[in-house]
């Protein structure tokens, strides 16, 4: 046989493999708004950059007549390609082949590309669309999952790991995404749960639909398991591309610099966004946009614990991670969910050399039995831990309220912020004037002829004396009182002078954070 024949044979084999589960199965995918695994990879990567590996891997099933079945690529496509010209590793489970079920060879392909990513120090993107473990392969399927989880953990904080849920992701399979940095979901397409509605019904007698149990909306809004929510796969791919532009390729690199662009100040005027009255709401994302290059802000976990806002933007072309209290929602309080959400993001930024900018305006922690019983002590502590632990440049701007424990937690000097600025509207105090006056002047108020008038008088006195940035400034707890319009410059300068920052941390294996 000459080269011509052999090439023809190769092409034939490739055609077979590319068919996946066949036309019928592909049509079924399309009917519910899903792309095929290969189309998904191609949509995410730069055009014509995808190189596939392990196309001819055979499945390892021997029992239950599985040895007679041909499963192209064993239901997963793996390879490398580029995004914005930078290399990435990628894999996509193919639901058309045996429901994308995970067998031993399927897992081996995934772990091989994961090892590749870790060795080459480039990001890995995993597209999940699978019915779960291939039951016929028994304990080998479980071994496969375990090998993936182990690698997810080893790679954590070394290379970016992105999970895209584009179909079912059930049982043990959900733990790989949970171990990765960012999880993307699409409305009506993504489904994640440990035990599905069927099992819940038979075992517990409780009825619930897949969507209500573990749909995209649930994980974006209630559980916080998903970080990016999209209406369609196309929108999801755009979000991935946008995210990848903000983050570095590995933990030894900085994020790519982009040409500097001014914010859209006509649309987002920093002088007029915030009402002076600390009891009035506004959208803190407008403040973020008013200081970010081109007013571009990529928000993470937008729908979950919306009382804190986290995400990426650029200042003079450099990526920064933003953490901001959101007075628009729950007055911007810290609670169990918002503390966990912000803490994990801070650790992400720290692991990947992204400076952290914190915008402060919060009344403190959310009071409530549910909060106390949900462990707000432990979860709130995550925020203290994450900020204290982070050694990247930390820049804090106190815009309005910074009361009590909230003041400490939101990257104060005491947790080693490198630069703390405060607007003239800042109120840095042990608690809000109303609460403080009621405690300090309790007896005077009680014994007064007209308690209500005295209370008002005392609140005013307290406000005049303490509801400002100058008491804290007098102790050096804030470095500068700045006009709002100077904020971008303040942050920019701080970034410039801290670009060589080195912080020595005590030698340890690792800390024991309040997970």
């Amino acid at each position: 046989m000459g080269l011509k024949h052999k090439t023809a044979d190769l092409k034939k084999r490739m055609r077979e493999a590319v068919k996946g589960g066949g036309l019928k199965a592909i049509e079924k995918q399309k009917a519910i708004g899903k792309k095929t695994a290969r189309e998904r990879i191609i949509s995410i990567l730069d055009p014509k950059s995808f190189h596939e590996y392990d196309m001819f891997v055979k499945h390892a099933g021997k029992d239950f007549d599985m040895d007679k079945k041909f499963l192209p690529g064993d239901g997963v496509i793996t390879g490398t390609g580029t995004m914005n010209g930078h290399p990435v590793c990628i894999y996509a489970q193919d639901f058309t082949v045996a429901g994308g079920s995970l067998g031993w060879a399927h897992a081996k392909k995934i772990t091989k590309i994961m090892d590749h990513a870790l060795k080459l120090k480039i990001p890995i993107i995993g597209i999940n669309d699978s019915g779960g473990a291939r039951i016929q392969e028994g304990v080998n399927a479980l071994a496969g999952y375990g090998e993936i989880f182990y690698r997810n953990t080893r790679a954590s904080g070394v290379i970016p790991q992105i999970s895209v849920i584009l179909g079912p992701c059930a049982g043990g399979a959900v733990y790989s995404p949970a171990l990765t940095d960012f999880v993307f979901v699409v409305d009506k397409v993504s489904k994640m749960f440990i035990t599905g509605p069927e099992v819940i019904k038979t075992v517990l007698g409780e009825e619930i639909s897949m969507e209500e149990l573990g749909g995209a909306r649930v994980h974006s809004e209630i559980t916080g398991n998903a970080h990016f929510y999209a209406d369609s796969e196309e929108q999801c791919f755009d979000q991935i591309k946008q995210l990848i532009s903000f983050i570095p390729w590995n933990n030894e690199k900085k994020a790519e610099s982009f040409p500097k662009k001014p914010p859209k100040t006509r649309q987002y005027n920093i002088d007029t966004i915030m009402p002076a009255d600390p009891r009035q709401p506004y959208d803190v994302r407008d403040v973020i946009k008013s200081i970010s290059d081109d007013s571009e802000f990529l928000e993470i976990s937008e729908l979950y614990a919306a009382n804190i806002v986290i995400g990426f933007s650029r200042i003079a072309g450099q990526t920064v991670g933003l953490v901001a209290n959101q007075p628009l929602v729950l007055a911007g309080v810290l609670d169990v969910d918002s503390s966990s959400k912000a803490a994990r993001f801070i650790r992400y930024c720290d692991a990947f050399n992204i400076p952290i900018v914190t915008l402060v305006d919060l009344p403190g922690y959310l009071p409530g039995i549910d909060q106390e019983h949900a462990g707000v002590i432990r979860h709130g502590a995550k925020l203290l831990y994450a900020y204290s632990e982070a050694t990247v440049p930390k820049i804090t701007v106190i815009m309005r309220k910074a009361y009590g424990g909230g003041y400490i937690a939101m990257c104060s000097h005491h947790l080693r912020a490198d630069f703390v600025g405060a607007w003239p509207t800042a109120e840095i105090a042990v608690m809000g004037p109303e609460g403080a006056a009621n405690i300090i002047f309790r007896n005077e108020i009680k014994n007064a002829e007209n308690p209500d008038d005295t209370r008002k008088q005392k609140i005013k006195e307290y406000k005049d004396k303490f509801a400002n940035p100058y008491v804290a400034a007098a102790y050096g707890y804030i470095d500068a009182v700045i006009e709002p319009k100077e904020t971008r410059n303040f942050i920019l300068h701080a970034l410039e002078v801290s670009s060589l920052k080195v912080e020595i941390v005590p030698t340890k294996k690792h800390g024991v954070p309040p997970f």
Partner: protein
Amino acid sequence: MAQTKDLKSDTKKPSYKSLLIENIKYRTLLTKKYQQKKPFVRKDVKKVTAFIPGTILNIYVKKNKRVKEGEKLLVLEAMKMRNELTSPIEGTIKDIYIKEGSRVTKGELLVEFI
């Protein structure tokens, strides 16, 4: 580039509520989770409820029977485990709300004391 859904688009007319923290009333939106939170209910020792959903296998007591603290009341099978439920107090059974073989949900009232 595409952004995730704006919060504002979900709440076209922001319906601000007030949230009281340390005697200060803040105008703000509430999250779905906050609105759906369940009020705290103190545990009533006279009511024995299912701590896990499952099936009632055996019932050892009858209505109006006097039982000691720690005495076996029933067996609740859940997740392939047979859980013996014992009496939390010494008292008389007011009523039994389940039969052997009943499927119960979490928190369902099983036995009540007078």
